[in-house]
């Protein structure tokens, strides 16, 4: 890690410099609209090497998968193969414009088509739209599809969506954006949806349920087919949040087990890099009845040619053009390198790795739910009096590990949500276990090491309260 303070681009600025040579004009200058001429623009001015050093140094202030174990639960921080990057860097992709005619973009539409087909098969669905730009965008698509499908059934009065208490925040937020109200369904003692509570909630205002499977506790929803049947019986539809598909590729096809519409996070399961926040891709898949409502356009093949078209009763467009295409190329590359066999190995090894960590840590870090997990598990960080999960997380940084997801899901106090993924070796997992055990010991003997952590980073714990009370969101020099 680069520990030296790095000035802001503005502080490095020298008047008159420019970091890229630009062509001189070969046409006459035209008159700007007089009343709109901008007198000055206060952007930094830097030479090229200064820009290169600046951003290189900044990059060295990050933990990343390429540099560190990053067991961030629910985020599937697996290795992102370099072949994905090479595939996406083809000039034939970078230079194709979305409004070039279909005949000019046959390669691009073919790739979309093939990826749609592959993902539909992996999920066991009838059709796929690659338009959503991220998981939450896929959720919005899915709940809008549920809304329109219910209307088409003459059931427009169904406006309540059921959401388990372990769900990710995007689930209820997406419902609100689609005009649904939400009702929280509690989890039972086994960490699965409480069937009695579900039964009680299933009245004729229910539009459906949003299920994450495996759920955010890392547990497979054992009653999945039963839950789907209950909701269907009551006239509702079932949405699947596929953020956790890494546990299930080649293991379980949600579309053949009662899930009506679902998103996958291609930036998780399908190894496209997360880029420090995005871009992702949140394809949405549907069974036959819901397929006509998919957002579009989607790709299809007609007499040997590829084309893009709107599904018949589409909810409409969710973004301009066709989705985060550059991300789709990476995901396609990954799926093609895996094949059916490889996909199953992903799930198997991710589940094996998670259970191994669970088995080695559970005596020290308590679990609220003790049965075998899927690709992740949730432990608790209160290993000694006065020690909180936050302290464990920050101390892990000093040991050279990115912390797990903390304080989520909300139903486990002091949650530490650990997802190793299949691309980590036993050796790395063993090193992580050693660090976790040693931190638990420190928590009892030298708790100040935890309270003061991290000390090996460019900055220590930052005062987030002061930052939120008087926000400084832009450089003010």
């Amino acid at each position, binding site marked *: 890690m680069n520990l030296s303070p790095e000035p802001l681009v503005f502080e490095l600025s020298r008047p008159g410099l420019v970091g890229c040579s630009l062509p001189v004009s070969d046409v006459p200058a035209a008159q700007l609209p007089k009343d709109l001429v901008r007198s000055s623009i206060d952007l930094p001015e830097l030479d090229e090497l200064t820009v290169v050093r600046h951003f290189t140094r900044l990059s060295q202030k990050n933990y990343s998968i390429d540099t560190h174990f990053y067991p961030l639960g629910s985020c599937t921080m697996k290795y992102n193969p370099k072949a994905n990057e090479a595939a996406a860097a083809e000039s034939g992709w970078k230079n194709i414009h*979305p409004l070039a005619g279909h005949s000019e973009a046959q390669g691009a539409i073919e790739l979309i088509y093939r990826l749609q087909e592959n993902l539909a098969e992996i999920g066991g669905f009838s059709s796929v739209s690659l338009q959503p730009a991220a998981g939450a965008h896929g959720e919005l698509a899915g709940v809008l599809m549920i809304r329109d499908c219910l209307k088409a059934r003459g059931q427009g009065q169904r406006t309540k969506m059921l959401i388990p208490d372990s769900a990710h925040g995007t689930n209820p937020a997406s419902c609100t954006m689609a005009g649904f109200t939400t009702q929280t369904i509690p989890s039972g003692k086994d960490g699965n949806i409480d069937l009695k509570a579900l039964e009680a909630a299933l009245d004729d205002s229910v539009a459906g349920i949003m299920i994450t499977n495996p759920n955010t506790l890392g547990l497979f929803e054992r009653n999945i087919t039963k839950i789907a049947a209950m909701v269907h019986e009551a006239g509702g539809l079932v949405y699947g949040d596929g953020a956790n598909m890494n546990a299930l590729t080649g293991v379980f096809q949600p579309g053949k087990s009662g899930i009506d519409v679902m998103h996958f996070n291609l930036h998780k399961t399908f190894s496209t890099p997360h880029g420090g926040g995005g871009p992702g891709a949140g394809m949405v898949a549907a069974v036959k009845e819901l397929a006509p409502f998919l957002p579009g356009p989607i790709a299809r093949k007609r007499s040997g040619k590829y084309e893009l078209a709107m599904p018949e009763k589409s909810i409409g467009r969710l973004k301009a053009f066709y989705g985060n295409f550059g991300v789709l190329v990476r995901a396609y590359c990954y799926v093609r390198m895996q094949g059916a066999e490889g996909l199953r190995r992903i799930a198997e090894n991710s589940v094996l790795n998670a259970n191994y960590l669970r088995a080695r840590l559970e005596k020290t870090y308590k679990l609220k739910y003790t049965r075998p997990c899927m690709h992740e598990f949730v432990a608790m960080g209160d290993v000694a009096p006065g020690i909180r999960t936050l302290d464990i997380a920050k101390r892990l940084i000093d040991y050279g590990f990115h912390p797990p997801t903390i304080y989520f899901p909300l139903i486990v106090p002091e949650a530490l949500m650990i997802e190793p993924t299949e691309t980590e070796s036993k050796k790395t997992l063993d090193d992580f276990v050693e660090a976790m055990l040693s931190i638990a010991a420190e928590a009892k003997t030298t708790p100040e090491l935890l309270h003061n952590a991290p000390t090996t980073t460019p*900055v220590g714990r930052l005062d987030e309260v002061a930052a939120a009370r008087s926000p400084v969101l832009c450089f003010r020099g």
Partner: protein
Amino acid sequence: MPFIPNAESDRMAMLEAIGKKSIEALFADVPARKRFPKLKLPPALSEQEVLREIGAMAAKNRGADKVSWFLGAGIYNHFIPALVPALASRGEFLTAYTPYQPEVSQGTLQAIFEYQSMAARLFGVSVVNASHYDGATALAEAALMAWKLDEGRNKILLPEDLHPEYKAVLKTYFSSFKVEIVEYSGAPENAALDSGCACLIAGYPCFSGELYGLKAAAQRAHEAGALFIVHADPLMCAILESPGAQGADIVVAEGQSLGNAMNFGGPGLGMMGATEKLMRRMPGRIVGEAKDHDGRRGFVLTLTAREQHIRREKAVSNICSNQGLVMLQSCIYMAALGAGGMKQVASLCYDKAHYAASLINSLKGFKVKNRSFFKEFLVSTPIPAQVIVDRLAKRKIMPGLALSRYDSKKEKELLICVTEMNSKTEIDRLVAALKEAVL
């Protein structure tokens, strides 16, 4: 499989530690009848084979690397300095997650802060967020934000001359709510504002390239108690007065043109900025400055109580993952070009577009319809524009967008875009080809 690091012996040892006999046994919770389906997928390919297959597909496209390019309409062909992808694709940026742990994410966080700061200056606003999916969703979310401010206002005024796909996205985002979306034509200050309007939206420039000043519209919107939302061309803001300085409350943009490839339209960069007053109403992630206990400057995600992970169904938006890496590319682009470079690129676009427009306007049967424009202008053509596009394709020229793609009534309208990528020779060739195409 090169992505799985454990040997069979490792797996055995791990199973023993878990106390299970086989990996299959770990999947006991999955209904037995549904477990391990046989997926019908094509067989796996090696890296060498997959890159060849994908390369062959990519080669089937005919884009700006093979053809003289004058098509814009929301996605633009601009030069990308080599340092932009070289820096942004460093693994430490590329393979990091959202910066939830600030101490080990200062690189990403400081870059976002720098992006926010530069974009805010470009737009003339106080706050810019860390990105939306694209320009269209940024606009839709801005309108949602304006609408939620005041439950008494249920009308949104939209320029008729807005990208048709942006209109469609806005319609989808509002499809669950009782909101009236009304289109106006012409200058934004002429829109029919009243006390029921949540916001007035204007293009800067419009889809057709037409450029209106914004001051009068801002004033009229504010008099009616509505927010004024501007969809801007970010590069243009380097030479023309910023929307913020003219009174915009929210500025949104597609930032692809700032250092990002066209990529068949995605990933793009949804930019959104606003006045300080609106900062806690904004969707999306925002980075702020903070200090550690030793007084060192650092950066954190802040004002998070707006977001879904805290406020769930009451959040201002459901957005979680955004377009981080695209934002980073634009951040590096703005830093590398700086004030001088941004101005120069914008001027090149402006001058070349005006050079092209004046020549095309003098061709028999062609007429430039704009009064004022930046880099894109609308031309009425003597024969259907799509016929021209098809004819010029044979000469390796993409002359623009035939508007009949979106509206069959607009058969003889061609939207032409000229950027710094188009040399004078290329422009002259386009003009000659247009002339011959209609002979």
